[in-house]
């Protein structure tokens, strides 16, 4: 294998792949990126067995071939070079990779393609196409409600339900639940219901953010999903099993709706939360056109902040985990939001105003 390419291009490609590299892996080869040169393209791929990333860059191939190179090392070398172009070749007799750039020369030990795990390929027509910006926004709103606790693997995933004209994402760590919905122009032929690890979707979002392409093509296989954005592919395993029946959790709809200014509500919650230490909750009390957010921690102190709201009903006082409440408020788009409450033991709902494409349900903390 031997090729010449722009140093910047190669760095970009390798950095895309680096997302799929786990620092915790027990298998040394998984710390490497598989590079394959053929004709005018160089294919790069990496995997941690849950997520894989594949991309390609333009190169001038002098001799076709493949090898696996340690990702961190080659990136460190390339970013420290000054030359515009680099030449990379496999020295077969030594089993080493040689990097030549100006007066610099590096010989690196490598792994071989035969030992690298096979990564599924996208085949045929995509199952559906998604709008990259819209899907990115939805992931951002929904994925943070997913659990980060591996003890409940199902809840570390996001349920993605698609119909020919609509998509829905649901995530819950069992203490809050977020649902995002949108219309689809080029949805799948039939109904699709899969659970994708939240981590994969967060990585997809990072790829979307660095890409200038606006379409995400989705390919579904038995237990994998492949997202293609321009020349980059993200491949993720799917979580098998049954997601909690979220429809059963959703309340019928509350009559007590409070419309608040999002920035004001968020600021107040963040300030008051400073006094909700050692697992103590923040309390939201509403009555007589007023909402009071309060917290107190024994031996530390207490805080309250009041806001005028339109809420003529009788007093309701609900306690929440401060972080869950802050996450819910920040998830809603727009300058205003609606919070719906029923009683201290029932979930509260946070929604955008006059739109029903997003819902954040938060379970209260029962206080005596």
């Amino acid at each position: 294998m031997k090729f010449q390419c722009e140093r910047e291009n190669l760095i970009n490609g390798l950095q895309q792949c680096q997302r799929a590299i786990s620092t915790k892996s027990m298998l040394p080869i998984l710390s490497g990126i598989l590079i394959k040169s053929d004709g005018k393209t160089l294919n790069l791929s990496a995997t941690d067995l849950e997520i894989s990333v594949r991309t390609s860059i333009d190169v001038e191939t002098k001799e076709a071939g493949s090898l696996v190179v340690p990702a961190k090392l080659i990136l460190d070398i390339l970013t420290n070079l000054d030359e515009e172009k680099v030449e990379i070749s496999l020295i077969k007799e030594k089993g080493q990779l040689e990097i030549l750039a100006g007066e610099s020369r590096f010989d690196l030990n490598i792994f071989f393609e035969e030992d690298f795990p096979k990564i599924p390929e996208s085949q045929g027509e995509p199952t559906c196409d998604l709008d990259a910006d819209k899907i990115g926004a939805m992931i951002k709103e929904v994925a943070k409600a997913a659990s980060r606790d591996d003890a409940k693997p199902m809840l570390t995933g996001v349920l993605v339900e698609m119909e020919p004209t609509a998509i829905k994402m649901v995530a819950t760590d069992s203490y809050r639940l977020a649902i995002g919905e949108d219309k689809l122009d080029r949805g799948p032929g039939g109904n699709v219901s899969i659970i994708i690890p939240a981590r994969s979707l967060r990585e997809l979002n990072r790829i979307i953010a660095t890409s200038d392409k606006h379409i995400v093509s989705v390919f579904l296989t038995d237990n994998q999903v492949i997202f293609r954005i321009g020349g980059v592919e993200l491949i993720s395993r799917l979580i098998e099993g049954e997601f909690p029946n979220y429809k059963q959790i959703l309340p019928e709809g509350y009559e007590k709706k409070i419309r608040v200014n999002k920035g004001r509500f968020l600021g107040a919650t963040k300030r008051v939360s400073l006094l909700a230490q050692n697992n103590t909750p923040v309390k939201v009390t509403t009555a007589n056109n007023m909402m009071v957010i309060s917290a107190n921690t024994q031996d530390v102190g207490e805080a309250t902040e009041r806001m005028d709201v339109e809420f003529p009903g009788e007093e309701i006082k609900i306690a929440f985990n401060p972080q869950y409440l802050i996450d819910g408020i920040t998830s809603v788009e727009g300058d205003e939001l609606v919070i719906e409450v029923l009683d201290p033991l029932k979930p509260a709902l946070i929604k955008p105003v006059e739109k029903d494409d997003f819902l954040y349900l938060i379970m209260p903390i029962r206080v005596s």
Partner: protein
Amino acid sequence: MPIHIDMDAFFASIEQRDIPLYKGKPLIVCHTDDALSIRGIVSTSSYEAREYGVRSAMSVLEAKRLCPDGIYVKGSYDKYLHNAKTIHEICLRYSDKVEIYSVDEFFIDARNSSRLFGGEVDIGLQIQNKIAEEIGLPCSIGIGPNKLVAKMASEFKKPRGLTVIEEADLPDAFAPLPVYKLVGVGRKMRRHLNSMGIFTIGDLAGTPEDELKSRFGIVGTALRQASLGMNSSTVHSSFNLRESIKSFGHSSALGKGLSDLDRLTKVLLGLTEGVTRRMRKEGYAGRTVNIRLSMARLFTVCRSKSMAVSSDLTDDVYPMAVNLLNKESQLLARYPVTTIGVSVSNLTDMEKGLQLSVLDLLENRAGKIASVMDSIRGKFGERAVLRASLSDWGRRYHSVPRLEIK
């Protein structure tokens, strides 16, 4: 000067107070499911039993050999905790700075109130009298220039003693005592020190600091300072006993030892059931699951892992504990487990609030089962309803409850 209050044979004194039949008899309070179990451990022995050589942490089997006519009873920890709470309240009448050091030991910093009550010695005597008068329990008082000395002083005269050690009495007051009497010197350290020719606290104080430091590191420096009666820790006020509880645990002694993972897993389930039952009873949930394995009585392995949120259910705690145990399978293949324990720490007081779960809205099976089992056990006894896999629990294994206090 800190005042140290050390309850005399606390658990045994409570039982002797409550059941007159036990008075003046060798009484042994055991950590066990039932008093006759040979797997139990002596929790506290009355002074009468101590004359036979029965000591805390001894196996019940050994105690019975030393004192075959003793009265062996099972500890009622809720009752002891309740008494500790009352003692704490009595102490609080004399100063706002009261530290709950353990279930039967308290430190009082009475600097700000000593003039009011006539000095530390008077406060000590008054507390001793009040505890005897109001709840009928004996205690010994130690007063010293710091916590370490006060704690050592309360050991000088027991039961019902009061000892004051002044700055000027140091280090001579400690010098003749055997070195293991020093706080912080355990069985292992005692052996190390003896091998260096150090047998009394005086020997330790006479050993050059460099020599201790090169052998034990910073522990060496601390030991030598302690031998001279030097200590700088302060009395930390504990607000109440509820806040001072650090963990709930159960452990089981396995005789000669067990290596079989399946059987150990089952023991773990029984222990976890006991732990979560007690947590629900006391109103706590916890986030961190700890297991403790004593391997062939040679060494102890402790492992812990935290859950995303607090729980008081076996269904949450048990899988974590099993996971921790499974990770030690290589070790288990080489050494049998002689004692196994599970505990839950990082506690949340449910009185402060419990995070509800959306899954409760679906079908909170584990929670409902636990609460039904709890109410049956409350009415008909702890063994009235059991998990099927634990049907031989109690016949083959026993669990010993343990409450850790900050």
